[in-house]
């Protein structure tokens, strides 16, 4: 056993540990939004650990070459880019399809943002229209 194999095994062990943590959060959390938060974050970190760990581990074996590390880095960067996008799309679909928040939730920034945008889109028309009308009348 050389140093590359040991480093790769430690990374793979950390990754599988974070996989188990993510599925545990998927079970334990009370709400679909909380579930998505914990599960996506830790599953992304766990898959980074597993995939990069396999790439480093294969360098230490007799069949491994540098192409292993290159391909695993490509897969890891792809997962790191696309996992938050799919999580964002799923959570927006959950909010728009009307799934309520957990009763212990205290803040809803997205609803505040939607209300502020709606008020902003509705209100500036009236102050703009009324001075023009008054100016036109006078």
């Amino acid at each position, binding site marked *: *056993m050389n140093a590359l*194999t*040991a480093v790769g*095994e430690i990374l*793979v*062990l950390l*990754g*599988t*540990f974070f*996989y*188990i943590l*993510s*599925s*545990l959060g*998927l*079970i334990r959390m009370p709400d*679909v939004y909380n*579930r*998505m938060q914990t*599960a*996506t974050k830790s*599953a*992304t970190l*766990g*898959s980074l650990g*597993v*995939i990069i760990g*396999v790439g480093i*581990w*294969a360098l230490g*074996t007799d*069949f491994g070459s540098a*192409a*292993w590390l290159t*391909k*695993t880095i*490509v*897969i890891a960067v*792809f*997962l790191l880019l*696309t*996992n938050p*996008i*799919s*999580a964002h*799309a*799923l959570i*927006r*679909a*959950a909010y*728009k*399809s009307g*799934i309520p928040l957990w009763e212990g939730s205290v803040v809803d920034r997205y609803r505040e943002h939607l209300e502020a945008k709606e008020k902003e889109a509705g209100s500036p028309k009236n102050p703009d229209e009324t001075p023009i009308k008054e100016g036109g009348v006078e």
Partner: protein
Amino acid sequence: MIGINVYLALIAIATLLSMYRVFRGPTTVDRLVAVDIMTTITTGLMVLFALYYGRMIFLDVALVYAILAFGGVIAFARYMEGGL
């Protein structure tokens, strides 16, 4: 050190635990979240299988699976949202 079989068993445990949410989940989005996490776990599992069998072609399989799973989740999310 520990051996690759132990890591495969740990990944199997994680997949079984998240399958609980697929069967139990109250809403459709809950099941979709669990399936999304399971596809991420399966990508790592395929990379581990590539090391287990010593064949680099399985890494390409893992990359294609990740791309297809991402497209599928995006399509389901658009469908739930009312587009598509």
